[in-house]
């Protein structure tokens, strides 16, 4: 055993010094009185097992919270022998044989540790005495020696990592299960896997040593790496020491205060539940339409400012259309609003737009950004397509259109599979279907597990980390990534909490029992693919009926062809027979209708002589009978057309709890080979009071599902949750007002931005919850406020006093997002196919790198319905800042660069749309220039041109016509159509110029 150092320089922290000295005096005076009361029983004799039986459990229960694997306050770790020996930042804590000189003993005896001022109870006198005796007897770690701390917790995670894929939950090759000590003792077909105390006799060790296991040539096939020498050593040491099983339970929140997160940590504004604030009183009461305005005005007035004047009616209309539906108003919609002089015309428009089916396509898109929606897996070059991902996209759009309450929306997406027993449901209702489709939310990140070579445990842990990051950045407004490797540096999120949270998801995301993205077959039969069969009974029946109908109709068609074929066959036979001598004909007919084996000799003779020329196969018949050829072609066409109506078997791309999750160990430094303490499911301590256990119950009796995610979703959507409502209302605000009240939308932590209007944020959050988490009610509240109806006109005063618009002294001018630009071009050109939902429209990838979407019979569908493959982004979207969904996108950047100009100026598709736009203008306006200009402006900008614009456009149309005319030869110019043709081309130029104009892509 290592020689212990003397405790030079041991200094308890200053703040307790006085307290300690006081206690010290008090204790010394009564120590002699107390000691004799301790009853020394035989069991507590300091023998070889004293450390492992008495001291280790004591340290574990009372010290490890702060001096264990996860946290080492004062750099002291009492969970391992080396840590006890090494001591803390001030040196050794025990001096063997000399308890009175051992700082550890001193600290517990004097009740300095565990710290009473942090709510800890002191050790009992008996416990203190045990420690004294142990040190006095030489502080031996006993029989266990070096292996004293090696327990099943050091070994089980290794076996999960290297062995259980073939000897675990689903497959037990050779009848062997290596998940627990009991199952190892039971062993497999060749006998027990381990013999405690005798590693050399243990089959497990023999197989590993001989390199027979894990089988070298097969490991890559199951995405496993061979076991490493130090891991083998650990298993050997464990078996040698008797395969000890510690009874340390997984680390979960209890009713004891959390030692790692203090109430002071919880004081930060965003970790406190939002409270309904008082609405401030303001000077400019005439501008207060609802409390939002009061909160905004209060801040402005404090700076001697007020709200900007209300924007023009037309500006407001266009702003609302783009904001709520992402489409420009049609001339009819423009008139409907502009001519409505009722006092609530604006509110009526808001209602119309919120009721529009295009609303969900617009706002669903923002949510798809947060989920990182993608129709492909990425990572691998093949970029495998997720065939059924679109159902999730449709679910999101429908949820927004139906104004599904946000708490329900979240619950379905996080734990939809635990809301109803879908496997035993007699009928799959639309609700059950939605629950399952919604879980696609946490299936959207890039995922290399489509291939064995990118499906190792660290690859899977990256995917899990990405998904947790999607969840935390989108829903919780917290940055969680740091805690994967260490305690968060700025927010009070311990390393432990990341793993408690990952334990919640373990039933669905298990790095040791991974549901592959592609189909697999092994001992359990075919599995993988992440798809569930539970589409609605209605859809399933429809699909089956469709398959049946196609099969029947095809069969009928084929039958009719077959009967026609036999008719033509007969006809040809007669034609042929007619060329043969009459007396033979009857005999030949008889021969042909007689089966081979029943023919007599004469018939056999006739057969050898004539059968070949009297029998016609289908191809010969087609050649001989053009009519039959025609009929056969027609029926082939019909069968093919029928087959085109076949649909792939419907599946749901989902995430579901599969029961039997593997145990969760903290990975020290995020390293999957360095196991820390085992943890159980739990939520972030800082968002709780720190002394409430996380309660998980099965979702229904006898459920195989753990119910962990459902419990999490319930917690997340409690009305008093500090973040859920705030984060969502902040996002809605950002999309209406150009910036969040908390500008860092995904970070409400200490490194995030502070709210510009904290009371407003809380007021909105409370309103959101009180209105049943209705997102549409939030829109209504925001867009009807005076703050929203401000003009975007900048003044010098605003520039100086509120340069970053922190006070919301005006509406910001904004450039439309990529999808809105494409959709607007299509809409104005009259080529937007508004058909919603269903499988995505394909894209074409040109060798030049250009990626364009394929059209439909009606034009092109909205961008949200185009295939979103990670490696094939539409060039137009890419040029206009569509972010990569890697893993998701919490806010979109906007750039203004030359390739955007080049795209709008030179792209063929944009030009074609300008031609359609011009044709539409001509259809409505006829050939007169002033009418054409007016219609063009109305379609593109939903307004009339100004006098100045009119002049510019008129002159330009004339110039352009002349230019086009000048291109023609003298003869061509004489034609009466020439001028008209030139004028038409000039109109295309005008329309193309409008597509390229700043106004087309900006919102005031």
């Amino acid at each position, binding site marked *: 055993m290592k020689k212990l150092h003397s405790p030079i320089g041991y200094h308890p922290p200053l703040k307790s010094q006085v307290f300690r000295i006081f206690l010290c005096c008090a204790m010394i005076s009564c120590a002699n009185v107390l000691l004799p009361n301790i009853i020394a029983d035989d069991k507590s004799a300091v023998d070889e097992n004293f450390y492992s039986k008495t001291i280790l459990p004591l340290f574990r229960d009372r010290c490890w919270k702060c001096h264990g694997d996860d946290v080492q306050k004062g750099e002291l770790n009492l969970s391992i022998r080396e840590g006890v020996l090494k001591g803390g930042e001030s040196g050794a804590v025990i001096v063997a044989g000399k308890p009175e000189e051992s700082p550890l003993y001193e600290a517990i005896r004097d009740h300095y540790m565990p710290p009473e001022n942090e709510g800890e109870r002191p050790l009992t006198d008996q416990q203190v005495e045990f420690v004294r005796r142990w040190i006095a007897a030489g502080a031996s770690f006993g029989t266990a020696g070096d292996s004293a701390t090696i327990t099943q917790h050091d070994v089980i995670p290794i076996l999960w990592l290297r062995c259980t894929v073939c000897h675990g939950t689903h497959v037990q090759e050779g009848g062997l299960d290596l998940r627990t000590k009991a199952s190892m003792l039971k062993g497999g077909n060749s006998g027990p896997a381990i013999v405690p105390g005798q590693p050399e006799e243990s089959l497990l060790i023999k197989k590993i040593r001989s390199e027979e296991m894990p089988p070298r*040539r097969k490991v890559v096939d199951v995405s496993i790496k061979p076991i490493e020498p130090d891991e083998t050593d650990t298993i050997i040491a464990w078996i040698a020491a008797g395969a000890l099983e510690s009874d340390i339970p997984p680390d979960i929140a209890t009713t004891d205060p959390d030692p790692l997160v203090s109430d002071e940590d919880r004081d930060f504004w965003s970790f406190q539940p939002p409270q309904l604030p008082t609405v401030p009183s303001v000077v400019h009461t005439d501008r207060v339409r609802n409390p939002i305005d009061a909160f905004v005005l209060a801040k402005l007035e404090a700076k001697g400012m007020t709200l900007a004047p209300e924007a023009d009616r037309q500006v407001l209309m266009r702003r609302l259309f783009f904001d709520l539906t992402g489409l420009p108003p049609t001339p009819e919609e423009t008139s409907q609003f502009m001519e409505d002089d009722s006092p609530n015309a604006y509110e009526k428009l808001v209602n119309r737009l919120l009721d529009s089916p295009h609303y969900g396509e617009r706002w669903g898109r923002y949510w798809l950004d947060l989920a990182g929606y993608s129709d492909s897996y990425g990572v691998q070059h093949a970029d495998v397509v997720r065939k059924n991902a679109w159902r999730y996209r449709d679910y999101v759009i429908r949820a927004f259109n139906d104004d599904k309450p946000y708490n329900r929306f979240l619950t379905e997406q996080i734990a939809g599979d635990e809301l109803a027993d879908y496997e035993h449901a007699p009928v799959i209702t639309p609700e059950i279907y939605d629950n399952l489709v919604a879980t696609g939310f946490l299936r959207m990140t890039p995922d290399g597990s489509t291939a064995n070579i990118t499906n190792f445990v660290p690859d899977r842990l990256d995917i899990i980390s990405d998904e947790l990051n999607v969840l935390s*950045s989108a829903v919780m407004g917290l940055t969680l990534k740091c805690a994967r490797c260490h305690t968060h540096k700025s927010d009070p999120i311990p390393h432990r909490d990341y793993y408690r949270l990952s334990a919640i998801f373990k039933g669905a995301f298990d790095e040791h029992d991974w549901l592959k993205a592609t189909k697999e077959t092994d001992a359990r039969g075919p599995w993988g693919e992440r798809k569930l069969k539970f589409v609605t009974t209605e859809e399933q029946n429809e699909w089956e009926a469709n398959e049946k109908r196609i099969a029947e109709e095809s069969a009928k068609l084929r039958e009719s062809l077959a009967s026609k074929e036999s008719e033509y066959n007969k006809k040809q036979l007669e034609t042929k027979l007619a060329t043969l001598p009459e007396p033979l004909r009857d005999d030949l007919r008889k021969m042909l209708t007689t089966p081979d084996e029943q023919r007599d000799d004469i018939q056999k003779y006739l057969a050898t002589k004539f059968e070949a020329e009297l029998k016609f196969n289908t191809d010969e018949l087609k050649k001989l009978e053009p009519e039959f050829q025609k009929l056969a072609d027609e029926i082939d066409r019909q069968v093919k057309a029928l087959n085109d109506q076949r649909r792939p078997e419907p599946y749901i791309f989902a995430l579901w709890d599969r029961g039997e999750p593997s145990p969760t160990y903290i990975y020290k430094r995020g390293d999957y080979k360095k196991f820390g303490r085992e943890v159980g499911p739990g939520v972030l301590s800082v968002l709780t009071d720190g002394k409430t256990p996380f309660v998980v119950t099965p979702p229904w009796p006898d459920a195989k599902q753990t119910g962990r995610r459902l419990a999490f979703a319930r917690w997340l959507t409690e009305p008093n949750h500090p973040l859920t409502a705030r984060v969502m209302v902040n996002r809605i605000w950002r999309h209406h007002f150009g910036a969040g009240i908390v500008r860092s939308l995904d970070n409400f932590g200490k490194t995030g931005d502070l709210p510009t209007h904290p009371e407003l944020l809380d007021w909105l959050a409370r309103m959101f919850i009180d209105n049943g988490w209705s997102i549409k009610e939030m829109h209504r509240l925001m867009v009807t406020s005076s703050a929203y109806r401000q003009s975007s006109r*900048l003044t010098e005063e605003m520039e100086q006093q509120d340069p970053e618009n922190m006070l919301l002294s005006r509406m910001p001018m904004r450039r439309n997002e990529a999808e809105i630009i494409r959709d607007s071009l299509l809409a104005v050109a009259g080529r937007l196919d508004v058909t919603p939902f269903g499988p995505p429209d394909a894209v074409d990838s040109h060798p030049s790198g250009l990626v364009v979407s394929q059209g439909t019979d009606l034009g092109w569908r909205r961008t949200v319905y185009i295939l979103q493959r990670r490696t094939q982004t539409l060039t137009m979207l890419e040029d206009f800042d569509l*972010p990569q969904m890697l893993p998701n996108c*919490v806010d979109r950047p906007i750039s203004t660069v030359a*390739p955007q100009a080049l795209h709008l100026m*030179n792209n063929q598709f944009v030009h074609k749309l300008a031609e359609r736009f011009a044709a539409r203008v001509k259809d409505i306006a006829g050939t007169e220039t002033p009418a054409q200009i007016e219609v063009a402006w109305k379609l593109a900008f939903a307004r009339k041109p100004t006098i100045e*614009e009119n002049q510019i456009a008129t002159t330009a149309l004339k110039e352009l016509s002349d230019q086009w005319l000048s291109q023609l030869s003298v003869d061509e110019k004489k034609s009466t159509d020439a001028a008209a043709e030139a004028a038409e*081309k000039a109109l295309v130029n005008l329309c193309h110029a409008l597509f390229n104009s700043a106004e087309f892509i900006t919102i005031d």
Partner: protein
Amino acid sequence: MTFEQSQGVLQQVSRRGFFDRVASGVGGAALAWLLEQDLTASERRIHDLSPKEPNFKPQAQAVIHLFMNGGPSQMDLFDPKPELDRSHGKSYFDKIAGEVESPDSAGLLMRSPFKFKKYGECGMDVSDAMPYFSECVDDVALIRSVHTTNLTHEIALFQVHSGRTLPGYPSFGSWVTYALGSENQNLPAYVVLDDPEGLPINRTQNWQSGFLPPVYQGTRFRATGEPLLHLKREYDEPDRVTFEERQLQRSLDQLHKDRRPFQSQLDARLASYELAARMQLSAVEALDFSQETAETLKMYGIDEPATDSYGRRCLIARRLVERGVRFVQLFINGQIWDNHNEISSTLKSACEKTDKPIAALLKDLKQRGLFDHVLVLWGGEMGRLPIAQLPGDKDERKAGRDHNKNAMVQWLAGAGVKSGTIYGETDEVGLAAAVDKVSITDWHATVLHLLGFDYKHLSYPRNGLEERLTGVSEARVVQEILS
């Protein structure tokens, strides 16, 4: 007037005209100054390509990255292994199981089919597969001890190009252009010369900007025809008509802008149309070889069947860095260095396509004095194994080599590089880097250092983290190869 007031006035006066000046072509240094001086805090969040100052005085100002897709075999090109000759035919698989992508085809230790000789004053070992490169050895620093993290192409490519093993992180070139901007506003700052034959593995993700603003994404430049997407009209129209239409649009935008004072994004938009027009000229000019001598064209192997394609791209690379492009990256289609089969011929053919043009590029840059500010990087995403990889019929004459993440070669040349350096060693059979190991992260840090950046100080705020090219890894600048 207080300082703040004077700043305020300066802001109002100059901000309004700022983008007009961009449009009329104010030089790089002036632009940088204007950006620093003129913009309000919110506008500084606007990301652009104006030149920016590094952390410290850089050795290199531009980079040409010759990326060798597939993973060139180190022990057949630059790292001779006598022990492999001796142990040829011995079994080795069990020592490296788990490090072999295709265990079923794993064979025995295999010596190199190529002959090595020492070249140059530095005495660098080069195999006879690279006759032209052997003339340049005194101008490069060769690292023989590079290692990476994964042995599958996709992930290994992400590692080299973005420092991470998952898609979604900004590429190396994006980081550099984010950090330094560009010296030429009429050309893209970060140009990718991919193979006209097709996109490499990971496709355009190799030059994505990830979470950096898209303005830092690599722009593909085609070697022939129209270099950029949408550079020319894709429809028929007389130039005069187009000109008139532009005039019309400009007038309308001017009116729109005049009605909306102080909106700098509208200035930026007007400027972007001017820039687009100038880019149309500059991009075409950069590809115009008519000013190059016949001798130069010959040196690059242009018009020779084997070297024409890569030679053109090497020459374009030189022309681009001459014109102030910050980062030029060359890719090769078809995984020519992924020599799983018949390495004796497939590796040779990869060299025949690239060896001559690369040597020409080095000589050309040097003779034009561009070596004082241009850095050239050569290397792939991984190396190869010392054991043979055999086809289904186990015919040893068709033997190739499988992927290896533990050893690979990278070389650097030009600005700031200690030429004629041979650095690092692998173990005796060349399986793994053993002495003076250099990770991909170290390699990134070293290149950033040459460009004037401490890898820890080049960061971008995201999701509560200061993201870096190198992630949270500690890195080492390989000082030993720097001049």
